[in-house]
């Protein structure tokens, strides 16, 4: 039996001389993952638009459900990040929905899970890191942020830098590994069941001997764990960790140092003034 474990299929290769190694490539412009990404985006936008087209003060069944879910999201963000960080809720929600939908769409077998591609989870993890860095610099100032790497003692600096780099890497690899590993396991199980069928029922005459009977049923049960449950859990973990990392960079205004708070308030006032004009 020949079982191949490979990444997404490549559909379009750029003709120019660009870096192209096993771990980093710039040559493959369009892959299966690209298709999945756009398909999920389009489906989700269509869903969002159609579901919220007729929202009223007196909600129907669908609206009640939607409101429940959105309310849960806002409550989760508020309890994890604090009331002052509620503005991150739409991003967290988008991330969660993209992740879970990107994982589950693999079950259709028409598209490859977008989260089974390290590029995607790495891109999302880098967004988290970018948000953390941006908010750290915005809230504490560049100097204080850089100085934070030398704490608690100067010797710790390399460790702190490594941990700063490790957090997006671990975030990306965790999500990618779970989803991709699930699909690999599913493929392995399919292969094993096919072998088992031919070993036990191969004596059946004609075409009957070639039908992998055991492949029916058993993978479905496992798929509930590897695709649905794992997809949900990883989406939750990714969103939760993003919330935790970002809220670490966005403490409540009253916990900021006095001088930083003054600077931020001045900046806010200027922004408000500009918005009024």
């Amino acid at each position, binding site marked *: 039996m020949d079982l*191949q*474990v*490979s*990444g*997404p*299929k*490549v*559909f*379009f*290769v*750029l*003709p120019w001389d660009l870096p192209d190694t*096993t*771990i*980093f*490539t*710039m040559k*493959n*412009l369009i*892959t299966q*993952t*690209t298709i999945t*990404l*756009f398909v*999920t*985006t389009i489906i*989700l*936008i269509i869903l*969002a*638009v159609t*579901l*919220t087209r007729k*929202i009223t*003060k007196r909600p129907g069944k669908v*609206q009640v459900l*939607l*409101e429940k879910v*959105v*309310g849960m*999201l*806002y409550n989760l963000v508020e309890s994890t990040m604090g009331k002052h960080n509620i503005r991150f809720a*739409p*991003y967290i*929600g*988008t*991330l969660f*929905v*993209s992740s879970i939908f990107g994982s589950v769409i693999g079950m259709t077998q028409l598209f490859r899970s*977008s989260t089974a*591609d*390290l*590029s*995607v989870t*790495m*891109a*999302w993890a*880098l*967004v988290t890191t970018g948000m953390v860095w941006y908010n750290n610099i915005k809230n504490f100032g560049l100097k204080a942020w850089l100085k934070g790497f030398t704490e608690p003692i100067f010797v710790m600096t390399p460790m702190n830098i490594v941990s700063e780099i490790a957090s997006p890497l671990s975030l990306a690899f965790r999500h*990618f590994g779970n989803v*991709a590993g699930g699909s690999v396991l599913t493929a392995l199980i399919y292969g094993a069941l096919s072998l088992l069928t031919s070993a036990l029922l191969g004596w059946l005459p004609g075409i009957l001997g070639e039908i992998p009977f055991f492949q029916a049923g058993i993978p479905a049960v496992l798929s509930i764990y590897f695709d649905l449950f794992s997809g949900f859990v990883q989406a939750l973990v990714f969103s939760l960790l993003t919330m935790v990392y970002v809220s670490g960079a966005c403490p409540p205004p009253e916990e900021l140092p006095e001088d930083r708070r003054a600077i931020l308030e001045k900046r806010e006032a200027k922004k408000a003034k500009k918005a009024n004009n």
Partner: protein
Amino acid sequence: MGLLEATGFVLDKFESFVGVNFWTMIFAWVNLLILYLAFKKFLFGPIKKMIDDRQKEVDDIYSDAEQARESADRLKSEYEEKISHATEESEEILKKAVRRAQLKEEEILKEASEQAARTLERAEEQIALEKKQAINDVKNQVSAMAIGIASAVIERDVSEDEHRELIDDFISNIGNE
């Protein structure tokens, strides 16, 4: 190499299982951004607004009800105060009226008794006067009669002027006997 492959389309190439594709990352960011903007505009924005609006409406209804209750309480206490005042006032008025009526009654009674006393006095005076007159009348008649009788008895004229004293004595004696 076919025409399709020459344009960049490939049909049998796979990426490595663990690897990062620069363009996929770009597309992931683009899609995340598009989805974020779309969700903010079409999903989270309107729904959150709806939830908040409804919450605000409910809060408003509750605070309105609270205000209405407070004003009703205030009105009620005002009414109660007014009513208790009114009772006091009415009692006051009643008391005053009763006092006035009593005064009036006393006055009337006093006047009436005075008048009665006056009338009685006058009546007594009149009675006394009339009695005196009657006595005088009787005296006159009796004296005339006595004169007549005496004249008849002594067969001679008794002059009234001459025997005035005698007659009077006589009459007085009659009254006394």
